């Protein structure tokens, strides 16, 4: 992966006086470490999964029991982290309305590389029962790169833990490079996002 040059984003939807409050740098893909170090780090990443505890849809209701005595996801190194700055995973909890999508993008972009996306429920895969709704998006991976899908309406906590374990395998194999993918195809994702979000009153990249 080659690092791109520092590119300035226009932030054209922001008011002129607000523009210097926000960063205008493009995200750049960051190259991996050397082979063995990257393997070691990936092992640590896979065993310390901090997910953003931000309920974006009805599927999030099945995320709460993960932390209770019955399912106890802490055993696998999975823990909720309430701030996007520190978490490595964003859980898309089911259907995403256009209004929620905006928040999802903001949160996702604030997370630090490497970051992973797990998408719950049928709705975020193909629209589910909201497939013809006027304000619900059908496919989440047009807007952010998804690592693991967990189907169901809604998936049980066991299924979510299985999904986390699937993500662990992906991370250990070195395939979970969503953040770099997002940076490389930034224009594609941004165009898709702007097509669907009409009131775009935030910077082009929410660092």
């Amino acid at each position: 992966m080659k690092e791109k040059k520092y590119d300035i984003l226009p932030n054209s939807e922001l008011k002129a006086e607000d523009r210097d409050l926000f960063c205008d740098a493009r995200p750049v893909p960051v190259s991996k470490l050397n082979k063995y170090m990257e393997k070691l780090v990936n092992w640590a990443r896979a065993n310390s999964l901090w997910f953003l505890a931000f309920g974006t849809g009805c599927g999030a209701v099945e995320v709460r029991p993960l932390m209770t005595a019955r399912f106890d996801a802490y055993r696998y190194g999975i823990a909720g982290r309430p701030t996007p700055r520190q978490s490595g995973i964003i859980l898309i909890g089911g259907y995403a309305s256009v209004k929620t999508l905006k928040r999802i993008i903001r949160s996702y972009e604030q997370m630090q590389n490497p970051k992973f996306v797990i998408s719950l429920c049928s709705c975020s895969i193909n629209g589910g029962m909201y497939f013809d709704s006027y304000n619900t998006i059908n496919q989440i991976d047009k807007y952010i790169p998804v690592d693991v899908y967990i189907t169901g309406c809604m998936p049980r906590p066991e299924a979510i833990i299985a999904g986390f374990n699937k993500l662990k395998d992906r991370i250990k194999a070195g395939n979970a490079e969503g953040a770099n993918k997002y940076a490389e195809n930034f224009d594609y994702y941004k165009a898709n996002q702007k097509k669907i979000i009409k009131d775009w009153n935030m910077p082009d990249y929410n660092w």
Partner: protein
Amino acid sequence: MTTQIFIKIGYACISIAVMVAYGLLTGGVMARIRARVYGRYGAPVWQPFLDIFKNLNKRTAISHGMMFYLGPIFRFAGGLGTYLFIPAVFGSVLFANFSGAGDIFLVMYFIFFGQLGMALGAGEGGHPYSGIAIARGLAQMSAFEVPFALAVISIVVQYDTFSITEIVAAQQGGILHWTMFTNPLATIAAFIALLGMNMQSPFDIVIAPQEIPIGPPTEFPSQFLSMLQTNRGLFLVAKLILFMNLFYGGATSVWILFLKTFIIYLANLFIGVSFPRYRIEQAIKFFLKYPTIIGIIAIILMAMK
């Protein structure tokens, strides 16, 4: 002379490394004990190490400015300073640190230094939750400082010295020589202050996880966070060692140190898992009422002896 200085620095580095590892492991063990109380199995005991290693190797980290950079550094300096001026093991050269250079008031200053630095750094992050948490943290800090300072003054009056090494030396020769038995009131006042210092329930409003996500470090990503987490291990051990030295007879070997600090923290944890959370004004009122009165009585008793 130069050789001696380098040897001293080498010893200090070893002692810091041992204590950081011990502190993080204790944190992991305590998290597991807490999980068992809640009926869970909990994360593995080495989870803190993994978290730090992962955060250290994040590929990007954002910053909000100079003070934001310095916040975790001040916090870490606070932890280091606290630890380095406490004699960890009584009579040991390796774990003596720089205890000849400072006394208990220097250590007390260092305990609060880190918090102030962190307040400035987290303030520049600009997150509203950080701001709320800092206001609460500083308020609670000034509240529990009162009983803690009173307890310290009481034992300074009792032993007639400011030097931690001499305070430990005066407690040698059997369990009944410990401050815990010779000055129980000061021990009680300081123990309640320690609950506030360790932010155990009922005094965990500063980091109140369900309310203001995680308090001051809300905006700190990646390497900043790993620095803060490392400091959490070291600072925890430093506080526990200080308490062990002042009230529980110090330690003559590093194994006794591990045992005693573990038990002190376990006692802390038992109270932590048993009580709900005070609101900030309730916490301040509590600190300024019962522990403060106990501390004053402890001073008067010692002064009359």
